[in-house]
């Protein structure tokens, strides 16, 4: 397959955070030093080469960017200080933005001004909508149902979820399409007719591998060269955020389905309990992640784009305000502060959902599917 060299592509990638990959002289140190390199996944040298040459489809078809947990070993030992680890992150941001039909992801990743503007405008609009449903702030108890009309929250929330979901779905479809096409182009297609049963069994095997990897992230621990206590390991922090977030999502969804809005429930009510535990995990994980981004103890956190801050910061803020509201609900009286915190919580949560398909969080949707596709391609007979 012929490729056209595009030397300007490197500059485009620089906008996504790949600081200096022109410096790379392709020695292969990064690939060999990586603890995760194994059969069929040799990164990052090969696809830095794709980027230098501007072969975008090869770059986009690389499985490696979805495997990297960014331990920073490659960047720390790179003889050219070309920051290969940061390049992998930038490549991931790039492909995510390529799959996004709205082009918002590209703008959010590459422009600080746009990100901040978008955030402020979206927050302002959401706040105005909420304030349109404003009733009163009773002091004798925290009566959230009389603070903002529940219909405003529900319908806005649902709209935001539907918009984000649709965009995520479109991104996902685009990715599946392009990835399959690119992989078909790369494979010399010597497979021939596939046996239906073998195909199904390798489908299940690939599904199992991808689900296990996403759910437990066992390979993550290979990335910790330095001895770190388990609760500070990036794997634990990442799992806390991921499972905690899923728990919160489940609690909120079940609440919506089964619980009367704003009705008082005891703290041990199953959904409330799930929400509390999950929230604690998210709050812990997001706090450690934020502290690391501020103190920058390793290569991983040395380069933080605004889009990184945005997701983890919003998550942290929403969880924290959620806890404050939860406590306030059980207090004997209401206060203006508690009502405002509730407003911030609701708007923040909606912003978080709205940004899901674009920010750092996009990988949560795209990564499992990409892993599955790659796994299926390599495990199925004839591949």
């Amino acid at each position, binding site marked *: 397959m012929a490729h056209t060299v595009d030397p300007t592509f490197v500059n485009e990638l620089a906008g996504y955070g790949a600081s200096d990959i022109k410096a790379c*002289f*392709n*020695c*292969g*140190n*990064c*690939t*060999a*030093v*990586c603890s995760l*390199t*194994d*059969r069929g996944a*040799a990164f990052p*040298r*090969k696809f830095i080469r794709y980027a230098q040459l501007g072969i975008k489809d090869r770059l986009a078809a690389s499985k490696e960017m979805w495997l990297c947990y960014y331990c920073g070993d490659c960047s*720390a*030992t*790179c*003889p*050219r*200080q070309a920051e290969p680890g940061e390049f992998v992150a930038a490549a991931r941001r790039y492909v995510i933005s390529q799959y996004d039909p709205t082009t918002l992801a590209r703008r959010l990743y590459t422009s600080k001004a746009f990100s901040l503007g978008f955030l402020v405008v979206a927050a302002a609009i959401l706040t105005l909508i909420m304030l349109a449903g404003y009733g009163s702030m009773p002091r004798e108890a925290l009566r959230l149902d009389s603070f903002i009309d529940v219909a405003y929250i529900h319908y806005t929330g649902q709209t935001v979820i539907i918009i984000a979901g649709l965009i995520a779905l479109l991104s996902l479809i685009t990715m599946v399409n392009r990835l399959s096409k690119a992989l078909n182009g790369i494979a010399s297609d010597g497979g021939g007719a596939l046996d239906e049963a073998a195909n199904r069994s390798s489908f299940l095997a690939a599904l199992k591998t991808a689900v296990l990897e996403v759910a437990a992230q066992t390979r993550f621990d290979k990335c910790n060269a330095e001895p770190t206590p388990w609760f500070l390991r990036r794997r634990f922090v990442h799992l806390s955020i991921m499972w905690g977030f899923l728990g919160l999502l489940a609690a909120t969804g079940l609440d919506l389905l089964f619980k009367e809005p704003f009705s008082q429930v005891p703290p041990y009510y199953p959904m409330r309990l799930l929400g509390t535990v999950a929230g604690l995990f998210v709050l812990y994980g997001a706090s450690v992640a934020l502290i690391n981004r501020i103190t920058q103890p390793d290569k991983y956190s040395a380069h933080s784009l605004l889009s990184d801050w945005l997701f983890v910061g919003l998550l942290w803020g929403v969880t924290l305000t959620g806890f404050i509201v939860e406590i306030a609900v059980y207090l004997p009286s209401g206060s203006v502060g508690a009502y405002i915190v509730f407003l911030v919580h609701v708007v923040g949560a909606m912003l978080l959902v709205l940004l899901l398909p674009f920010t750092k969080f996009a990988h949560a949707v795209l990564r499992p599917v990409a892993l599955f596709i790659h796994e299926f391609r390599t495990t199925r007979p004839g591949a």
Partner: protein
Amino acid sequence: MNTQTIQCDALVVGGGIGGLTSALELADQGYQVAVVEREASIGGVMIALSKVFPTLDCASCITTPRMAAAAHHPNIEILTCTEVKSITRDGRLFAANLMKKPRYVDEKLCIGCRQCEYVCPVDVPHEFEGGLGARKAIYVPFATAIPQKAVLDAENCMLCGSCEKVCPSQAVDYFQRPEEIKVQAKSVVLATGFQLLPKDSKKEYSPPGSLNILSALQMERLLSPHGPYGRVIRPSDGKVPDSIAYVQCAGSRDKSLGIPYCSRVCCMYAIKQAMLLSGALPLADVTIYYMDIRAFGKGYEEFYENAKAMGIQFVKAKVARIAEDEEHNLNVRVELMEEDGRVEERAHDLVVLSLGMVPGCNPEEFVPVMRDDDGFVKCASPKTAPALTDQPGILVAGTAAGPKDIVDTIAKAGAAAMEAANYMRGLELDLSAVTEAVTGEEERAAERAAS
């Protein structure tokens, strides 16, 4: 403290092959030269090498005659065990303060019979052998050392008195003190040389407790006919290695170590050692892991081609990590980028690090010259007059100005000698007349421009 004063034409700092060449070139022209060497023998790094590329000549056979010629030259005075404390400009001359460290052996009395060495009960790792062999606490530095005089290592000596008793010329003197030497010279040649980057500089290449990872200079000693073991065996267990790996650019072209430059000699010395190993151990596999092979000199490319024809394996890969197992075998982790790009841990019995060159000392500490960003002495006009520093009368020879092979070191040492001679010749002429002629010409040019 005794103070000795020496007056000479040229002061050469460093008694390696570069410094000795400069000294000999100047002395042959009739200039009086003093050579300062901090070690107990002259000869520098070259005298420790086994053979030299690309001719595979014996290194001692080239170095020893030069050392002897310098030592016996009527116009050359050699000061060993001596360090330069400071060199300052003193009118039209240079004033140097030297410190002669105690040898605890009277150089005039010692006859180099080594009786002291035979009776000394202390064994210490031998620096000259890269720490592989052993020496005594009182010892002649190495077989071809010049001067052939013993030196006592006060750090390890236990003052048993055996050497003093056995010495036939009563040369052992436990009460020697440091001596100050003042030198007045018309010019200075800096030939302070290089050192190899320490072996443990890159943590990926120095697993804890590793015994079988050698520096290239240690391998030179193993290959040398009068080396520590007399043959090539690996240090951990004395096994004759079946498989030897060379790790190129171990401390060159590596910004993560702060060394962005190429050390220029490692490709060639690795190829040379690989060839010598093929001769010493005909059944052993020798693999060289490299990023690029830089065979730029006369006869170098042919040398490289010969090595390939001899069956030495060249693998294009930057070694990322070296791990050592319980048996002290080594696993070298590389990406095989010229095959299918898979990453492999390849087992070897012995690994040699082709360590890069870093400056032998910081000249700014004792002499007012500028350094480049890489730490080597800065050349004022590196293309047209590579032996000149930014200071008139202070010249630079050999690897003091940057990594170089022996050929270039000797060429540049000759250039430094010539520049020093030119400078001293200029001092002898009536400088004021020359200056006036120049300024007069400038004034006349200014007048012409004004009219």
